[in-house]
């Protein structure tokens, strides 16, 4: 049987992979992919806590479902913003973003 800690270590690893990507990538879409990794690892934690610590209750499952819905909404709005930025500036690198203020 797999111990609970192994799931938690796995999701921690995934979360810090996402954080490293958020620190080092310079492209808006890859930063969004990193955020997606972070959200996904947190979802694993909810499900694992629910299954191992409180198996009679369902809070973790519902929180995971709602978190998936929120991340879908967040992705849709963020991609709309990114497409709008691309339309104005013809690329989506982060270092060009301060030009938006001047327009």
């Amino acid at each position, binding site marked *: 049987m*797999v111990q609970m800690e192994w799931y938690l270590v796995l999701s921690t*690893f995934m979360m810090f992979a996402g954080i*490293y990507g958020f620190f080092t990538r310079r492209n808006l879409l890859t930063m969004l992919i990193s955020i997606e990794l972070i959200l996904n690892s947190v979802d694993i934690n909810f499900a694992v806590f629910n299954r191992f610590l409180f198996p009679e209750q369902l809070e973790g499952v519902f929180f995971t479902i709602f978190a998936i819905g929120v991340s879908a909404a967040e992705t849709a709005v963020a991609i709309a913003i990114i497409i709008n930025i691309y339309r104005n500036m013809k690329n989506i690198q982060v270092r060009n973003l301060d030009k938006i203020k001047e327009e």
Partner: protein
Amino acid sequence: MDIQTIIFIILAAIIGVCSILAITTKRILRSATFLLFVLFATAGIYFQLNYSFLGAVQLLIYAGGITILYVFSILLTSSDGDKAEPLKNKKMIIGLLSTLAGLAVCIYVIVKHKFTESVFQSGELEIRTIGYSLMGTEKYQYLLPFEVISILLLACIVGGIMIARKR
């Protein structure tokens, strides 16, 4: 070593390797593909925890919906040979060090912490139970968050159209 452990090791290897590759590969489209593999393996973990509904939701919304959204927006916004520009060494080392420090602290806390006794109770979660608790208003029932998230999704659809339309 039983079959559960072997499956967990396979899923963990997929998640570890693909999440590292997703954030280090140079091309954005490959990065989205590796993200898709990570999401598939996460759905596998939900199936292993006997939450099949959660795994199905993960496959439908994340792997089916969000990744397609990513691929379309990558194709819309990035030209063909678009590669990530090389990062300055100093910044990469600082990011790597801070990430490793945070990872070490978190894993130390997780391994050292004494959880209340954790038992894996296998047994499928019935869809009927999920449906009743999603559609009720009593204690431990979730009609209000369900409605709130539907309004949030509506607002996001309207906002996305507003932001992305041509002026």
